[in-house]
Each structure stands twice: as C-alpha cells, then as structure tokens.
C-alpha cells in the first residue's frame, strides 16, 4: 500500500511538471502515437474490410493474416522494425509496429460489421435499384458502424498499452518512465507511470463505449427498444 501511495505521490509531484520529460508531454506523446497509429491502421483496414464484407471475398485470407499478426510479439516487432528501418527512423519504425498491431481488430470490425447486416435488407436495397457502391454507402456501412467502432475500440486499447514499448527505443511516452524506473530501480515511478497508462486506457474505453452507442442507427435502436 505504501508503494501505491508513493506512486500516486510520484504522479502528482510538482517535479512531474518539469524535468527532461514532463508528465503532460509524455501523456500527449503517448496519445499521439496511439492516435496516429490507429488512424493510419483505419485508413488501410477500413476500406479493405468493407470491400471484404461487401464482396464476401478474401475473408479467409484476412482471418489467417489477422491470426498470424496476433501471434507476433509486439516487442520483437518494434525491435525488428527499428533494426530494419534503421535507428534514424525510430519513430517511423515504432509507429509501423503499432499500425500493424492495430490493423487486425480494425479489419475484423469493418468486415464483420458489413457481414452482419441482414442479407434480406441488402437484397431489398439491390432490388430497388441501388448500385453496389450505393448499397455499401447507404446500407452496409451505416448498419455495420457499431461493430466497426468496436474494432477501433479494441485496436486503440491494444495500442495504448503497447505504445509503452516506445519508451525502449526513444525517450517517448509514458513507457520512458517505466524503462528509466527499471534502470534506477524506482518502483514508485514504474507503478505511477503504469497507473497513468491504465487511466488513459479506461478513459479511451469509456469514450468508445459512448461512441458505439451513438452510432447505432436510429431505426435499429428504435426497433430494438420496441422488442424488449
């Protein structure tokens, strides 16, 4: 309990606002890595996932690749990419690793969202004369949005935890305090930084939970409310 109190004290210590890495800056860097990685992953995986869901093709490949990607240890991936891209491109290497980590859940959210749309609704949309693009845009995407947000949610949670590894390759983010804390055996600092990461994760998760509700299309939630 002592250590816990010390960790809290570490977080709120006035020293956190100064020094080589102020806490606020670490938090922002941490969030920036998370945000950029998830956005880049979404830019790649969302269109791809929609295409897979819409055409029903390439699903097996996507599932296999996602499974394989999940098995890759993130730390190894970060280090490997730093080696491959060179130490001068550490930011790029780390971000690439986080993007790769975020792609599978986003991809799964995008295609499962589209796939989960009632086939009869899609059939109805086609039969009144919607083009395939209109079916995707006006029917499959809006109805599949809650599952896509769910995918972004789990991607964000994974990345916000894994961005900690950025502290190993550079003095970035909350991970830096942990790496430094291990070196100088400052357990209050390690725990303090870890707690901040946990709070970030909880807050992001809550935000996504709200968002997930908000994107349920009006008619769908209305219908559901009537059923219950």
């Amino acid at each position, binding site marked *: 309990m002592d250590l816990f109190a010390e960790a809290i004290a570490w977080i709120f210590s006035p020293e956190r606002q100064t020094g080589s890495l102020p806490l606020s800056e670490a938090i922002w860097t941490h969030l920036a890595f998370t945000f950029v990685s998830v956005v880049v992953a979404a830019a790649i995986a969302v269109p791809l996932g929609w295409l897979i869901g819409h055409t029903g093709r390439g699903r097996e490949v996507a599932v296999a690749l996602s499974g394989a990607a999940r098995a890759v240890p993130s730390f190894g991936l970060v280090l490997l990419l730093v080696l491959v891209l060179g130490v001068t491109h550490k930011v790029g290497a780390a971000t690439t690793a986080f993007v790769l980590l975020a792609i599978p859940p986003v991809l799964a959210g995008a295609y499962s969202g589209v796939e989960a749309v009632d086939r009869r609704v899609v*059939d*109805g949309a086609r*039969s*009144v*004369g919607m083009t395939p693009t209109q079916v995707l845009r006006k*029917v499959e995407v809006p109805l599949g949005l809650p599952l896509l947000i769910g995918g972004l949610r789990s991607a964000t949670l994974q990345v916000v935890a894994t961005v900690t590894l950025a502290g190993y390759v550079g003095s970035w983010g909350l991970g830096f305090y942990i790496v430094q804390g291990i070196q100088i055996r400052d357990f209050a600092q390690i725990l303090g930084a870890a707690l901040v990461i946990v709070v970030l994760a909880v807050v992001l998760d809550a935000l996504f939970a709200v968002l997930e509700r908000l994107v349920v299309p*009006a*008619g769908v939630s*209305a219908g559901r409310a*009537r059923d219950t």
Partner: protein
Amino acid sequence: MIEFRSVTKTYPDGTHAVADFDLVIPPHKTTVLVGSSGCGKTTLLRMINRMVDPTSGVIEIDGEPIQDRDAVKLRRSIGYVLQNGGLLPHHRVVDNVTTVLRLEGTSRRTARDRALELLDTVGLDRAIAERYPGQLSGGQQQRVGVARALAADPNILLMDEPFGAVDPIVRAELQTETLRLQQELNKTVVFVTHDVDEAFLLGDQVVILEKGAQVAQIGSPSEIIENPADEFVASFIGAERGARALHTKQTGRGTVLVDAGGRTQGVLVDSPGPEAPA
C-alpha cells in the same frame, strides 16, 4: 408484355431451379405464379428484374431482351415487393418509400409529397411516415413495401408472397386492397404465392407450377377450376375435396351449396347477381 422463352436457371451449386420455361405475361393484368415450396417461383420472378440472370434463354419486356438493359436501371423501373418487406431498418418510412425517387434525383420535397400520397393509396395513416420500419406491425410493413414498389410509378409490379407473413385477417384485408389497387392503377402484376385461394382470388391468369418450374396449367381461375389439366392440378387445387367440391342440398328456404365436409358454403340462385362478372 413480359415474355419468357426457353428460360433455364441452374444455380452454381447445380440446383436446376427452372428448366426450359416459356410464358407470356399479358400487360395490365395480374398473372399469379402458384406452386409448392421450392418449385422455382421466386427464381422466375427475380429473373424479371435481373436479380437473377438466366443460365440460358431469353426474357423480353415489350419485345426488348432485358439482358441488353442495365440491371440497375431496369430494377428502378420495376416495382418489387419482397416477401419480408426488405425495408431499410435505419430509414424512416417516408425515406423507404422515396428510395427509388431519390436515387433517380427527384427533389426531397417532391418525393416526400409523393410518399405521403402513396401512404394514402396503400391505406396507411400519414402519421407513420416518420416512424422506422421496426416500429410497425408486419401488415403495415408490407403496405410500406407496396408503397415503395409503386413510388416511381412502374408499369410492372413484382410481388413475392407479399402476404405470407401476416395473420389470415390482415391477409384477407391486404388481398382486397390489392384487388382495389389493381383496378385503380392497371399495372402489369406478377404475383407469386403458394396459396391456391390467393391465386384464384387475385389472378386474371394463373400459372400452376410443378418442380423445376414445369408449367402444369395456365388459364383463368374459372378455366382451371372447371377443367383441371390433369391429376396433379386437380389435387393441387383441391378440386375433388375441400372447399372447391360443392354439391347441392335442398332446404326449406331453397337450394344451398355444401362442401365435402358438410359445411354450407352458399346459396344457389338462378342468375348471376349484379356484382358477378358477366
């Protein structure tokens, strides 16, 4: 006029849904395709708006092969009522009804006015325009489906067991409305059902189908009831027993008609009443 010539449909899994099918569907009349489950009715219907493309053979609308026409434009020009309604759950009733008009670039305002008129036409209260399909009863959803199909004022209306999912009372109501609508609107209607009574009630021309969409008999309801082509048709329409085999019985008040079950179905009169067709 819609014409099927030697149309065959074999699905990719090898199912022969339709084999060498010929049919002429006259304009401004209701043609009913009736047959038991899996005999290929839906497949036939969906070939008319190119939701299904035939494996071989030709389908023409007014002499023009539909294969040469753009599938999306063709579908927008044909009304289609799906068995389950097939409405968009996330669009309000009014937006469901105006889907085709909006796709075709009609202004929101004009489309909306048209939608409200159509709700009147299909016997729905205008107040439900702002509701979502999930907030309607099955019967109301079916009516919205009909309104949607009528929105672009198509010449052809395809209806696939539109009243299959509603209770018998609502069903009878919807059938009556369909008859009234057809008198008002004069469309070429192709109607699919597995219910013989519904077929005889609604059809000007009734096509009785066997497995693989083999035509067992084509004719007006009277022609078929009076003269079933074979054993299959006779038993399918229940000619020997049930409600369609009636015999006379003398009572104190005159002659009545009684079915095989002994239930009195009507009174025998000398000449057709003023309501009966000439």
